[in-house]
């Protein structure tokens, strides 16, 4: 999925009612198949940017196109349908539902499909196999390791064939040896054409991406590409 964001601004009020400038004129262009890491200190606005790109939050001003469509103009119903069908979210704390087994967790997005006819779900065994979870259909999140739980979350993000994955500190709760295979999985998905935006404060994690974007104080301050020339700011 191609992303064009220009001049995004977003101001919050914190719990004490003080305004916090999360985004102060962010420009970002992402091409299909890019694996982008956004890094920066906490509070730099990287999660806010992810939420804006993920249609969970609206910018105060600016322009944001996903595959050529301006998402700022969309009503909530359209945004929800877009999140359902085109986007996949992966979070630091997994956000699996503890009372559902692996298969039910992975299938959860099917519940909220609005289009008719509804798209067929991917073959569950194949999907779980592709994220390294073969044979865990009936297990519950509490019976899985952290790395396995994050794989369930990734399978859930992919179940309806999302072409943009948004990952917010996906390895933040994992130790380095567990984190590596997860990052390998992202790299593998990107190499097969999925666009991935990963937010992290860990430079080692960011280095696994093909593009690294550094943010500070609500702005993109530096961008580097790992294995290809050119800077896309």
């Amino acid at each position, binding site marked *: 999925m191609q992303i064009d964001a220009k001049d995004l601004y977003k101001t919050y009020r914190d719990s004490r009612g003080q305004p916090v400038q999360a985004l102060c004129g962010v420009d970002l262009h992402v091409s299909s198949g890019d694996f982008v890491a956004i890094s920066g200190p906490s509070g730099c606005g990287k999660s806010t940017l992810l*939420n804006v790109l993920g249609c969970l939050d609206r910018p105060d001003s600016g322009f944001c196109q996903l595959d050529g469509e301006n998402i700022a103009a969309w009503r909530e119903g359209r945004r*929800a349908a877009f999140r359902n069908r085109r986007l996949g979210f992966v979070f630091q704390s997994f956000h699996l539902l503890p009372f559902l087994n692996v298969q*039910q967790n992975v299938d959860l997005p099917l519940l909220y*499909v609005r289009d008719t006819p509804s798209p067929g779900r991917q073959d569950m065994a194949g999907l779980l196999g592709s994220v390294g979870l073969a044979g865990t259909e009936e297990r519950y999140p509490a019976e899985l390791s952290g790395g396995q739980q994050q794989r369930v979350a990734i399978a859930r993000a992919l179940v309806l064939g999302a072409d943009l994955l948004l990952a917010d500190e996906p390895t933040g709760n994992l130790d380095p040896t567990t984190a590596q295979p997860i990052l390998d999985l992202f790299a593998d998905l990107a190499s097969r054409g999925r666009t991935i935006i990963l937010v992290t404060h860990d430079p080692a994690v960011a280095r696994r991406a093909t593009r690294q974007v550094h943010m500070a104080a609500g702005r993109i301050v530096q961008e580097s590409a790992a294995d290809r020339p050119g800077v896309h700011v």
Partner: protein
Amino acid sequence: MTSKNIRAALQVVTAQPARTMLLALPVAVSTALALATLIIDAGLTARAEAAARSFGTDVISIRPGTRIIAGKSGPVGTLSGEDVEILRSRLQGAVAIEGTRIQDGVPISAGSRNGVYRVFGVRPPWAEVRDFGAERGDFLTEDDVASSARVCVIGQTVARELFGNADAIGGEVLVNQVPFQVKGVLVPKGASPAEGDRDARIVIPISTFYDRLYRRLHLDQIVVQARDSSPDTLTSLEQQIRVVLREQHRIAGTDTDDFVVRLPDTIAEEARGLSRSVFLLLLGLSGVGAVLAMLVIGLVTQQGVKVRQGEIGIRRAIGALPDDILQQVAVEGVAVSLVGGLVGLALGLPAAWLLARWQALGLGFTAAVVIGPLLLVTLAALAGVLPARAAARLDPAVALRSR
């Protein structure tokens, strides 16, 4: 309401059975209590109405007042034949007025068989007023009264116990050692809460009662048959009776009556056994239970919304709309309330059945029996709606930040 949200809610409710049952418990208890109370009350009301009906819905009873003598409470002999005469001449709206003498626990025998029964001394019109004539044989006549004849009409129980399968009519019974000839057998009336087994009685001329058995002048009951059974007629008659009898008995302004007037309503109320106030207390308790159930469901759901921010956030992230969240959380409340209602039904119905058996009541099913528990379950379900609205308003970006 869409099926996906019902499915999501049922997943939550069924995946955590212990939590669901705990939440449903107050609903179950108050539903069971309301159900049992309403069923039993309906049964008691039916019994009371039957009692009033069987006594006569147009019949007012006047009994002597009671007075405490030597530490014992007993009836005073305040009602007389003169009272009957004066009531006959002055009451407006009465079609018949009859005085009776009544003696309980009278030994009666026939041959080798004997029993203890209630003896009524009456005049022939009494049968009309109380709708209590002879089923077989004859009732008493004016001649029987005029001649103080030793004749009687016996109840079905008396006939069965003293004569078995043999024909009682024409037979002889000894009433307190005095021989009486049986003229007829009374119509069957069955048991009444107000009067006990109404077939365990015999009826003799009121004059014979005085001349041959118990020499007392006063009457034990005066029955007044009203023109109709409308409350207006009955209330008016009650007031007239009190005015006439107070005057006749020379009772001063503020002194209490030396007689008791009972309307069909009073008879019904006495026949309920379990008083109305006990019923209201029980109903109030189940009302308190209902409020408690609403509080529990409301507060636990509200707490749940806080704890479940991550779940709500992820559902929004994968495509749920605020309305989906609202419906899901509301349906969870409905499902828990329904579980409570069903458990309440499963507890309340057998409880009501046992109580009804114990009290020898019919099971009463009225509209209230259905509406009461239904209302309770509905209120409990509604208690989940407010927190559900709060859940729907959560900002998904904020909700997802929670752990």
